[in-house]
């Protein structure tokens, strides 16, 4: 049944390539197989310190997020005196990102959830509040101009598509199809549209593209997930 744009085997292949590079740079992505099935998903856990107090630096936003790749790295921040001052007011938030294949839409779907270390889940607005800064910073960084332009269009797509009747319901809370637990999700129904646009250009100049890398580089930042540039270079070198 692989007559479509992006079948499940392609999905698994691109994820495997993606994880290979992730392992090389210690980016923390891994593959999880479903217990009773041959399929699975890709996942990553990330910890962030959320500073609830305003810092003493002028111009610094009230909510500052420091992205850390692993739990062990938390100890490194003790040297930073600025973080020390507000350590009492800061909280560690655990973000989980899952990349799962949707056979209905035949695209990958990004599931995510966030919780405090004691297990209390974060509401969507808290998560959104948290990623706003990363997203804005991302937009300002070149050389992503083409991608961010398409990305702005994508977000426009999400807003205007009306995937759900509630306007601006950018992401819904739904059940993870393999774990059965509540997750937020970036709705997949328009993924095909913008991915076709994104993949057209590199394919014209015969550059090899990892679908998952391109897709995740667009979707990820909206929910606080950033991809180091080395992923893009890794793909070009693969073949």
């Amino acid at each position, binding site marked *: 049944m692989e007559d479509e744009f992006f079948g499940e085997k392609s999905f698994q292949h691109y994820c495997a390539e993606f994880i290979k590079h992730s392992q090389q740079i210690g980016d923390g992505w891994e593959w999880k197989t479903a217990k*009773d*099935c041959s399929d699975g998903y890709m996942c990553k856990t990330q910890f962030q310190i959320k500073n609830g107090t305003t810092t003493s630096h002028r111009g610094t936003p009230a909510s500052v997020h420091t992205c850390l790749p692993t739990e062990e790295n938390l100890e490194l921040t003790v040297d930073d005196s600025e973080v020390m001052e507000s350590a009492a007011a800061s909280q560690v938030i655990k973000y989980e990102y899952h990349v799962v294949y949707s*056979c209905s839409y035949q695209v990958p779907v990004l599931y995510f959830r966030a919780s405090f270390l004691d297990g209390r889940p974060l509401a969507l607005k808290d998560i959104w509040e948290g990623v706003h800064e990363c997203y804005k910073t991302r937009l300002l960084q070149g050389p992503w101009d083409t991608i961010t332009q398409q990305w702005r269009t994508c977000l426009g797509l999400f807003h205007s598509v009306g995937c759900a*009747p509630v306007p601006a319901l950018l992401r819904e809370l739904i059940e993870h199809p393999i774990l*059965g637990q*509540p997750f937020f999700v970036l709705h997949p129904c328009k993924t095909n549209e913008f991915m076709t646009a994104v993949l057209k250009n590199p394919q014209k100049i015969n550059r090899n593209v990892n679908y998952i890398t391109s897709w995740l580089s667009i979707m990820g930042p909206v929910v606080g997930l950033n991809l180091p540039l080395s992923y893009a270079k890794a793909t070009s070198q693969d073949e």
Partner: protein
Amino acid sequence: MTDDKDVLRDVWFGRIPTCFTLYQDEITEREAEPYYLLLPRVSYLTLVTDKVKKHFQKAMRQEDVSEIWFEYEGTPLKWHYPIGLLFDLLASSSALPWNITVHFKSFPEKDLLHCPSKDAVEAHFMSCMKEADALKHKSQVINEMQKKDHKQLWMGLQNDRFDQFWAINRKLMEYPPEENGFRYIPFRIYQTTTERPFIQKLFRPVAADGQLHTLGDLLKEVCPSAVTAEDGEKKNQVMIHGIEPMLETPLQWLSEHLSYPDNFLHISIVPQSTD
């Protein structure tokens, strides 16, 4: 001879007699009597239990009331699953009425989605419909519909209006004359014995040689362990809307007639009942 259209009505108007009892640890100011209600199989718990909520809230103090949630024999009930599916999967072998326990405290965050309003139910319902059409028609039929048609589907379900609903839904049941059915069949298979919430795969209603695939073909392909074992003894019941369709039934027919309003066939596999 029953018309196929009658099946659509029978499915739509299926009801489950239910008894709602308040959880014993909830703090009440006065005695809360159990509340009896006929639940529509094709609807969703949070859509049809306003009266239940009002009834129990009358016996409690305002400050002790937060989001309502339901549970059956210790299992939190997922409001985003159709009622009939929940019953078939969890309680079909028990005597009626279906005994559901009502909670207002200690919402199980890890197990249940919050349902902040009817809009959440609508969003979920429409999301399922869109996914079903992605499978059946590459989303062409549902995307061609106007917003008012989508609204009519939802209002039809919410207000229990069969004709209003099917006036639009019939378009989602059509397929090009040159084909013998939908592109893929929207289905989900549920079992309580697996960790995974459901099985959903791509499956065509017609084989390469033009033969119509049956329910038995589907089960053999995606869930072989669930059907009859080598010794011939039937371990499980394959249930949709409280009935066991014959395994020889064409899947295309099942999809057109026994789907839930969200256009999915929600199939329960439950241990063979002993009576």
